[in-house]
């Protein structure tokens, strides 16, 4: 294939002329992309000898667990805030700490048991 034809194929491969993939086939007849000999054996050796798959699986499950816990936590916090707001009528620090209606004396007796 001469240089001019190759350049035309490169440019035309991006347009509508390549909707049927014929230009790609023509290009691939000239340029061959492949991995080295023994590629399959190397992949299998890495999978079964290095534990990479176990690491991927562990990461995936960890991410899934983290996502699930995050969603549940966010939902619980929202419900708690709504509940506090309905009970106390506001979301002040005292309300969030649960000491909104408390007096210091009753707090001391509550903590000491006297």
């Amino acid at each position, binding site marked *: 294939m001469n240089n001019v034809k190759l350049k035309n194929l490169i440019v035309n491969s991006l347009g509508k002329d390549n909707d049927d993939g014929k230009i790609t086939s023509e290009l691939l007849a000239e340029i061959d992309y492949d991995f080295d000999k023994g590629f399959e054996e190397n992949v299998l050796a890495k*999978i079964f000898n290095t534990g990479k798959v176990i690491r991927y699986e562990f990461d995936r499950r960890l991410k899934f667990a983290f996502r699930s816990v995050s969603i549940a936590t966010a939902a619980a916090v929202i419900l708690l805030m709504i509940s506090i707001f309905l009970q106390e009528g506001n979301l002040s620090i005292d309300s969030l700490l649960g000491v909104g209606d408390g007096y210091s004396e009753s707090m001391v007796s509550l903590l000491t048991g006297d």
Partner: protein
Amino acid sequence: MINEAYTESTDETLVKASLKGDRKAFEAIVSRHRKMVARTVKGMLGDSAFAEDIGQDVFIKLYGSLSDFRGDAKLSTYIQKIAVNMTLNELKRRKRFTYKTESELHEYDIAGDDAESRYDAKATVDRVLKMLEPKFRTVVVMRMLQGYSVKETAAILELPAGTVLSRLSRAQEQLRKYLKNNE
């Protein structure tokens, strides 16, 4: 050597067999799709030992996520998505885009294209791909080296078809200009 029974099996059959622990079945999947992955990985990263490692990692990740493959899409599309994501992630992680400016490439051409006998189709394709920014390079590799339609490219890259079309059109313009300047 891969058994003939495996080479004639469908992808779905090979996936099921692989999930049951049949290593030869997975080897057949690798053998069937290695060239497709090579076009994506080497098209994006260039032909290097580094690309060879990423190619292996694509299939290792595939093996680790085979149980997630539900068969809604073709296995090749599923593998292609893994290949594109891993290649882009690796490029981001290493921050070593082989992106070159047009002027740098022009200098390379003047130095390296002085004899017809030295002309190499693959080197030309690699050179024009490296000229493109990664976001353009990805759509160009899908279209030029994989022969995917705009719709298929959009599905693999999870982009709107309009974005793919616009990137292809801009990349085509850049390539046309670059190749014209280097005639």
